[in-house]
């Protein structure tokens, strides 16, 4: 194998390929972040700006600075709800994640540790139902939420998001729980635990990398969810961030790129921070079932 300096040709080729891949993945986001610090005038120009120049976009998004002159026309509708929509997104995502993890764990424990007739079919059906596209069930969801008077409410969103997340959680958590030796569950039961106590005291602590990984994915799914939120929200009482950002396109005179880009960066921060902080658990969770 030919060696160049300390590296073989093969490792150099692999390294270059990975760098290209990294660029392909990161470049759009880095570009987005840089452009969020570029003024509206320079955003509209055909010559791209590679360096940040101003914090004005963030100040405008936060409502701390009002745009003047002709730029008054590019203030998109809904910008006054940006702050509250972030809070709504956070509340809905974290609440539905917690409920889905808890309820999903109960089911996953049953499928993983309690063998009963039809359990295989039941698990497959649960997962299969999740395969239905949301668009095919949105009308019944709409009717249901309307009937229950949960339209335009955070509780309505939480209920729908939780029901979307649970089947996915059951699938993932069943796999994680199956990797935990059944002897531990048996030992806990002989020691005096009920099934529930065994789940809480023994199974879940041992499955914590998997639980954290699934929780992160749940949060990301809920945080980024747009379609259901668009249908079920009507006002500042329940708008989530993806819905608000979609409203920014409703400016016929001047497309508010500055607001859209800046809101996109702000909206990406919570999941990004979570992913970085819990990256160890995500990797552990993804690979947990891979090696026996």
């Amino acid at each position, binding site marked *: 194998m030919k060696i160049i300096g300390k590296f073989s040709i093969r490792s150099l080729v692999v390294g270059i390929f990975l760098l290209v891949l990294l660029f392909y993945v990161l470049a759009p986001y880095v570009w987005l972040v840089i452009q969020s610090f570029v003024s509206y005038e320079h955003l509209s120009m055909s010559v791209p700006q590679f360096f940040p120049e101003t914090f004005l976009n963030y100040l405008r998004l936060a409502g701390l600075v009002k745009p003047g002159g002709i730029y008054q026309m590019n203030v998109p509708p809904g910008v006054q709800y940006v702050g509250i929509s972030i809070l709504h997104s956070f509340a809905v995502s974290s609440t539905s994640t917690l409920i889905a993890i808890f309820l999903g764990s109960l089911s996953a424990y049953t499928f993983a540790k309690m063998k009963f007739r039809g359990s295989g079919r039941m698990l497959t059906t649960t997962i299969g139902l999740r395969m239905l596209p949301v668009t095919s069930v949105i009308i019944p969801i709409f009717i249901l939420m309307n009937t229950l008077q949960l339209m335009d409410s955070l509780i309505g969103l939480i209920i729908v998001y939780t029901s979307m997340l649970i089947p996915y959680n059951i699938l993932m958590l069943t796999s994680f729980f199956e990797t935990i*030796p059944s*002897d*531990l569950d*048996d*030992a*806990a*039961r*002989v*020691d*005096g*635990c*009920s099934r529930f*106590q065994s789940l809480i*005291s*023994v199974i879940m*602590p*041992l499955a914590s990398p998997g639980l954290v990984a699934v929780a992160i994915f749940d949060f990301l799914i809920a945080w980024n969810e747009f379609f259901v939120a668009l249908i079920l929200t009507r006002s500042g009482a329940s708008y989530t961030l993806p819905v608000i950002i979609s409203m920014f396109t409703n400016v016929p005179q001047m497309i508010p790129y500055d607001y859209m880009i800046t809101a996109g960066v702000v909206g990406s921060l919570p999941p990004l921070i979570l992913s970085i902080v819990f990256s160890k658990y995500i990797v552990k969770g993804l690979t947990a079932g891979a090696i026996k």
Partner: protein
Amino acid sequence: MSEIVLENITKTFGKVVAVENVSLKVRKEEFLTLLGPSGCGKTTALRIVAGLEKPNEGNVYIDGNRVNDLQPGDRNIAMVFQSYALYPHKTVYENIAFPLKIRKVPKDELTKKVKEAASMLGIEELLNRKPKELSGGQRQRVALGRAIVRSPTAFLMDEPLSNLDAKLRVQMRVELKKLQSKLGITTIYVTHDQIEAMTMSDRVVLMNQGRIMQIGTSKEVYSHPDNVWVGGFMGTPPMNFLECIVETKNGHAAFTSEDFKLSIPDTMAKVMGEKTKDREVVLGFRPEDATLTFRDEEGAVKTRVYAIEPIGDALLVDLLIGQNIIKVRVRPDLELQSDSNVYLRIMLDKVHLFDKKNQQKIL
């Protein structure tokens, strides 16, 4: 301490019958072993006693109380698993304390009991460690500590020594038996190791294919097997078997087959009686209950040496009688050649006679 009764227990998993119509009584303070090959149903039977499996038929009684519907934690039994099943995220102290913590034992009393259990097993200095920091023998002691800490009325042990190396296994066998005797706790022990069963048990229950084949003391199951299977399972090397007919000619009886003819002494024939006349039987004898001679004597069977295995204090010799291979244990200084002819003398006063059809003991 408890008396445990299994009454007509049957357990199936789909089409597989794991335990079939098993009934047995474990006396108070008794050390009873369930012994058998892998898949014979011994672990399933143990798990039924523990409450980890529900029988399809039959009842389990602990001290006269039917416990079929009681949860494992409510039966006041403790279990030691083959894998020890120590909670990896808890320290040794927390592992041992766990059964007491679940029962909401007051903290002072809990600490006292944990320290007592740790002291009894010599693991006080390990209390702050996690299971992954312990050796196999130490983990075993912690598992025992978790079992004894709440003074159960019965121990259930599922091959607890099988993960230890041979030397440690021998040491722990003795310690386990001493501990059980000291505490006087009724114990049901599951193993596939005959030595463990023979050395530790008050009684042994031999199981095969979900059924009980024999119950008795170590001596009884070894020296007086009830059937061919028990005779062939117990003992290393196992019992030898030769199929033949009890032929009577001119008032003299003999074990006869196309490969050999062995006269039966009159005294033995009298004991065997009319019921064995012209009957197809299986003649069983242990390797140590036969000798070899180089002369064609009265009562000796001509054989050919197939293999010779020196084992230090003896020779294990494989002999061919027709298509049958017979193993005998002889003194180590006997000079034998492979493929040579030798004559086998079976000690007829130590043979076991089984019916060929139903494989059950006749004599």
